[in-house]
Each structure stands twice: as C-alpha cells, then as structure tokens.
C-alpha cells in the first residue's frame, strides 16, 4: 500500500482541477476550464467550429507523455460530417513537433557539458550517422507515430444519430453505461494509484479509462424538425435534452462542448442578440458556462466566391468570449486564423475596428480593378 499524507489525499479527492482544453483562448485567459461545465461554440458556417472541437479532442485523446489527458471522449456527430483524416493529421503533426522539441532539448543539455572540440567532432560524427540511418529513423519514427495515433484513436467513440429519438436514447444509454462502470472521479482503484502520483507531480488529474469529455457537433441539426413536428407537443430539443445534458455533466463531472449554427450577423449585433439568432432553443442557453462566438470578417464574405483567392478565408476573423452568469457577461474580442495545423488564436487584443475597415476597403478596390 502506498502511503499518503492527509493533504495529498485531500487535494486528490476533494476539488476538481481545471482542465486544459488546447484552445488558447480558454487556457490562457481562464487557466483551463473547471469541470463540470458546458461550453458552447457558436457561429455561422465555415467559421471554424468543427476545427476548434477537433483541437480539444486531440488534447484529450493523446497519451500523458505527449501532453494529453489520455481519457475517453464521446462524440455525437449529428451533422454526419466528421472527417477522421483531419483528426489524424492534427495528431501526427503534434507528435512530430513534440519529438523535435525533445530532440532540441537533449542536444542543448549535451552540448552544455562537453568541450568545444569534442562538440564539433561529435557533431560531425552524428551528422554522418544521421545520413546513414536517416531512413531507418524515419521509418521507426513513422511506425511509432502510427502506433500512438492508433492507440489514441481507440479512446474516441463516435455516434451518428439519424433522428432525434436516437440521439436522446443514446444519451440515456451513455448515462447508464457510466453509472454501471462507476465513472466518478473520486473512484480510484489500487491499480491506478501509481498513475495518480505521476499525474500529481505534473499537476494534472488522472483521467485514464474514464469518459471526461462529451462533444456534440451541432446540436442545431434537429432544430427545424423539432420545431415543426414536435412529438405529441413535447419538443425533445427544448425540454428533455438540455436537462439530460446538464444532469450528465453534473453527475460525472464532465466537460461538454456544443457547437451551434447561427445566421450571419455583424459582430455588434451578435453579442447583444446572440440568443435570438442562433438555431437553438432558449432553455439550453441558460445552462452554458462559457460561450465562444466566431464570425467572419467583412473581407472574407465578399471575396470567398468571387476571386477564388480563398487564402483570404484564412485571415481576419473576429471572435468573442462570453462568460454567462445569469444575464451578466464579459466579452472580449480576438482574432484567429484557420491553417493546416489547426485553428490558432491571437490573444493580444486587436486595433480598433475603424483601421481594419479602411484596410478592407483598400483591398476590395485593388481586387475590383482586376475586373
């Protein structure tokens, strides 16, 4: 039996620690998200909602050694548009960058100890060795990366409900599944004691073999069906499902990420009237702890279809964070881009809106002169 102080036990079992979500907006401003909480990501089409969710999933799936939480994730793909190759690409890039960073660190520690001459000799010999064994190392690395990606993807469960009923019943089934397997955080068997100590040293929480994240990609997929034909005057989306989601999050101390579709509006309107213009019933908005709202810049809306210079899509977005606490909210605006390596937020605040409007007008004139 491993011995523990009272303080260690207290810190381990009493308070939930905030989890890092890999979205720098939430991590750097709020130092992670405290479970249980519900985060909503809203916005019109093609603003990066699914991209941001893939980043969160990537963080939760990866093993502890590579900077992840190594826990199970449940994904409800109601839009039926989940793309596995994109997720594997993100995982692989992360692993490649992670290994390169470690190599650089090792080289630094090695060179700091020895003399200069010896360093040069060792570097030359290393280079020649590298050229010979370059291919072998690459193959080995690729094999290792493939194994890690496979093991991490085995922790992801995807559900594709086709009707609201199926969605509702799978939620209930997930709830009963977690009850039967005692998915509570306070439950720690003797097998996981050693892992707890390791995780304590790193300041993280032990989430292995537990479901700690539920992602619902576009809860607004059933909006129109539910609105026009509610079953016996009891619409599931507005009454039953929000209560269920909140129950599940509280019982098992989970994080829940929900994406919501919106109609395009300007930013100012969006902050004030966000509730009325999103494809979502009102009862669910009261249960959100945090909501991230994404939107296009004016530039991208004009030029997406016209010029074919779709690199414009990848610049100049705005977003806003709101912490909803019973009608009081604090909002901040940031900018972000979507690139091959995923969605990237810029935390430093932007200049005033007027400057950017002038820039946008100049660019529109330039492109119009082509025609």
């Amino acid at each position: 039996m491993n011995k523990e102080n009272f303080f260690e036990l207290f810190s381990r079992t009493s308070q939930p620690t905030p989890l890092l979500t890999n979205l720098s907006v939430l991590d750097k401003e709020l130092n992670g998200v405290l479970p249980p909480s519900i985060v909503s990501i809203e916005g019109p089409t093609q603003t990066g909602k699914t991209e941001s969710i893939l980043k969160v999933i990537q963080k939760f799936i990866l093993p502890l050694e590579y900077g992840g939480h190594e826990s199970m994730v449940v994904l409800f793909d109601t839009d039926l548009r989940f793309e596995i190759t994109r997720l594997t690409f993100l995982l692989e890039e992360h692993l490649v960058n992670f290994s390169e960073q470690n190599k650089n660190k090792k080289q630094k520690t090695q060179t700091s100890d020895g003399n200069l001459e010896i360093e040069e000799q060792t570097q030359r010999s290393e280079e020649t060795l590298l050229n010979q064994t370059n291919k072998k190392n690459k193959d080995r690395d690729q094999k290792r990366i493939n194994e890690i990606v496979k093991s991490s993807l085995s922790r992801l469960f995807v559900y594709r409900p086709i009707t609201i009923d199926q969605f509702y019943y799978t939620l209930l089934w997930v709830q009963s599944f977690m009850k039967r397997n005692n998915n509570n955080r306070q439950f720690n068997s003797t097998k996981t004691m050693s892992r707890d100590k390791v995780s304590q040293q790193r300041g993280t929480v032990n989430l292995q073999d537990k479901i700690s994240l539920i992602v619902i990609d576009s809860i607004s997929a059933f909006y129109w069906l539910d609105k026009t034909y509610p079953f016996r005057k009891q619409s599931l989306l507005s009454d039953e499902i929000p209560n269920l989601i909140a129950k599940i999050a509280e019982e098992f101390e989970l994080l829940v990420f929900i994406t919501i579709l919106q109609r395009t509006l300007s930013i100012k309107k969006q902050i004030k009237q966000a509730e009325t213009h999103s494809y979502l019933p009102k009862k669910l908005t009261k249960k959100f702890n945090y909501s991230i709202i994404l939107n296009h810049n004016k530039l991208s809306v004009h030029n997406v279809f016209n010029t074919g210079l779709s690199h414009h899509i990848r610049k100049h977005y705005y977003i806003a964070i709101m912490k909803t606490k019973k009608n009081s909210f604090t909002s901040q605006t940031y900018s972000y881009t979507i690139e091959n390596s995923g969605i990237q937020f810029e935390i430093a605040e932007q200049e005033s809106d007027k400057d950017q409007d002038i820039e946008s007008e100049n660019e529109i004139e330039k492109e119009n002169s082509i025609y």
Partner: protein
Amino acid sequence: MEPLKSLNLAIDDSDLIHKLETINITTIHGIIKCDVPTLCNKLGVEEEKVSSFIEDILNTLRCYDIRGVDLIDHSTDLEKRQQPNLLSTKSSTLLPLSKKSCATVFATETPIDELLSGGVRTGEHTEFSGSSGLGKTQTCFCLVESLLRNDPKASVVWIDTTNSFSASRLKEIHESKCLKKNLKEKDLKCDIYDRIKVFKAFDVFEVYNILDRISDCLSSGLQKMNSQTTFGNGFEELQQQDILNLILQEPVENLHFQQKEKGSKNGLEEEIIKEKEDEKETKNGMEFEISKKEKEKGKVKVKEKEFQNDFENLISTKLIIIDSVSVLLSPLWGRSQRFHLIMDSFARSLKELAIKYQMAVLTTNSVVEERNGAIDQKNQPNKQSTFKKSNIIHLNPALGEFWATQPSVRIMFTTKLSLTKKTKIPYACLIKSPRCGQIKPVFFSITEKGVEEREELYNF
C-alpha cells in the same frame, strides 16, 4: 413515442409489458421517465428485471458505437484502393495514417481532382455549383465514365431534373479514353451502359421515392446476412462492404426478399403448386375464393418482378448524382418553416444513404446574384458611388445559407476575364472542404474528350 409492443426484444418480457399496461404505461417514453424503485413496489417485481428491461430497450434503440480506430483503413494493399496520390510513394506501409480512411475515392480524371484531393469520396456529400454552361455536368460524365470503367461491378444512379443527360456524350468520352490507352471497347470487357440507371424527376417527392427504393434494396440484402450473424448490438458498419461483396458473388435467385408471407423464398410457383394440390384434395367448390387468391398471387408476382429488377440494378450502386438540386428546391422557397424542414431532411437523407451504404453523393447547384452596392450602402454616404460599384456582381451558390451548411465539399465554377478583357475564362475553385484542401484555382477546358487541362496558364 412508440408503444412497447412494437419492439422485438430478445428477451421475452411479455409479462412485464402486460403488468405495465395495468398502470397505463404503454410507451417507451413512459417507462424511461418513471422511477424504478416505485415501479417495483407497485408491480411487485425485482429491480434487476426492470432495469435490465430498460437497458435492453436502450440497447436496441441507440445508434451503434464506432471507435475512431475503425474509421482508418489498416490494410496495406494499394491496388484495392483508388487513391492516386499514394501510388507514387514507395514506402506504402509506413505512410502517415492521415491519408488512409475507410472511404474510397472515385477519381474524376479531370484537373478538378486536385481540388477534391483525389476525387469524390464515399460517405460524403459533394456539390458542384456554378452558372450554366461551365462544365458541371461534363465533369459528372467524366466521373461516371471513369468509375464504371475502373470498377466492373459498380453501378451508378443518375437523377436527372433538367433533361441534360445524354448517352451519346458518355459514349464519346468513353471511346476517346479507350483510344488514349490504345484499347478497344471489346478488349476492356465492360458494359458501362448497362450499369447506369437514369431516373427523371421533377419534384422533391419523386426523388424521395427513388431514394426509398434504393435504400429498400440495399437494406433487404443486408437483412439476410444480419439474420445469420449474431443479434446485432455491435453490428459494425464496416462489415457492410464485405457483405455486399458476398451478395454480389451469389446469384440473385438465392437471396431472400423482404416480404413476410409464409414460405415466400424464391418460388412462389412452388407455393401455387402446393395450394393447387390442397385445393384438389379438399374438393370444395369455392371458386370465388380461388379466383381471389390467384389475383393476389398475380399482384405479388408483379411486385416481386419489379423488386427483382430493382434489386439487380441497384444493389451495387456506389454513386448517386442529382443534377441541379436547385430546380427541385427553389420552387418551395418562401418564409415558411416547411422549406427549411424539407431542405434539412432531404440533405440528411442523402448523407444517411452515403454513410450507411458507403456511397458517394454528388449534387449540382446553380447560382444567385448579389450586388456589391447592396451590402456597402450603409457605410458609404454617397449613393452615386454605390451605383457605380453596383455594376460588379457577386455570384453565390443558390439555395441560401442553410443549404451551404449541408454538403461537406463544395466547388464553385466561375469565370474570369482574360487579360485582353474580351473573353471569359472558366475556372474552378474550392469553397468548402473538411480537409483544408488546395487553395489555388484550377483552369480547365471542355473538349470532345471531356474536361481537360488548359494549355495556356494564367497567374492570379
């Protein structure tokens, strides 16, 4: 909310259902909402029974779970998969997993493949949008021709709403490609014209009927295999392709049809013979009843024939093309909620077909104007300047913003003025894709041989 009797559960709980009826719990929703211990006290039944009953219900009604690992293709045989990008690399076994998914890629063999990162994929809904005459239908022809030539078992469903399908054009493309590869049609031993099925539809509801027929055929083929395997909670979607391969090897006669009549396997004729023998034995002169029976059998025979025809043609569909979805949906435009509902359910049924039966779905769409001045009016005070600028027209895909969310991949065909500003040059660009595909637009030209690369290069 369905009644409890409609469920076919593995465990016989008819006693429980009768007992629940006495307390007026007849629907699934009713039993899920109530408290389990209070129920047990009322009925005098053990808690385990009731809880296991509820678990069985949830198990049958939920969607099956898919692990992320299963969505990646673990096989190393490149010949089976049609991914042209991977064929060029040597070390195929050690490729990154990000390029291997269970979806098969159908190459169109046109320059537009670069935008699609290989071609049209199964399990996805792709869309070509653009104004008329720019090459959307021509690329569809090239796609169909390449699919049917490369895969001798696949078949295609083409739903034509604008009367733009021409078999002679298909023939032209096919012959020109055979000449390119120095092959004759006879040497290829493929009948591409038999495996394409064209439906003419002018209404959304007709298209719904067609999609229902396709799903009926495919699901009945799967039911037979399903009944032989274990009772399916964990029935994985990925087994479907193996099952379809097995079905295609079997002759059609041995397969079980969906009808639930007694002994209606293959031979209704056998049944008729048996019944005639029975009638002779009974020797009851009920001629009226006999004639009725024969009429019913006749109807059933006709239905079976239709079903058999459908089954042969539609069992191996791998691609559904719907030419101009905008013709189907734009007459319904209005501010009523039902338009959005119809669009939503239509798109959803397409995606459901694509995912369930591993097919690719392609739709074409038209284009809508949007004047520049209308958007910038508020910011610019001078109305004359807006009037000048409003000469510039922005073209957006039709059917609005809601339809833009439904397909996963969208390609736009537009034109660009040449340097001399006298002619318009067509090009295609990628608007939406889940894979962050190629950014550069692609130039092409339409020739006798289909859609080909353009000789002159233009720099943006």
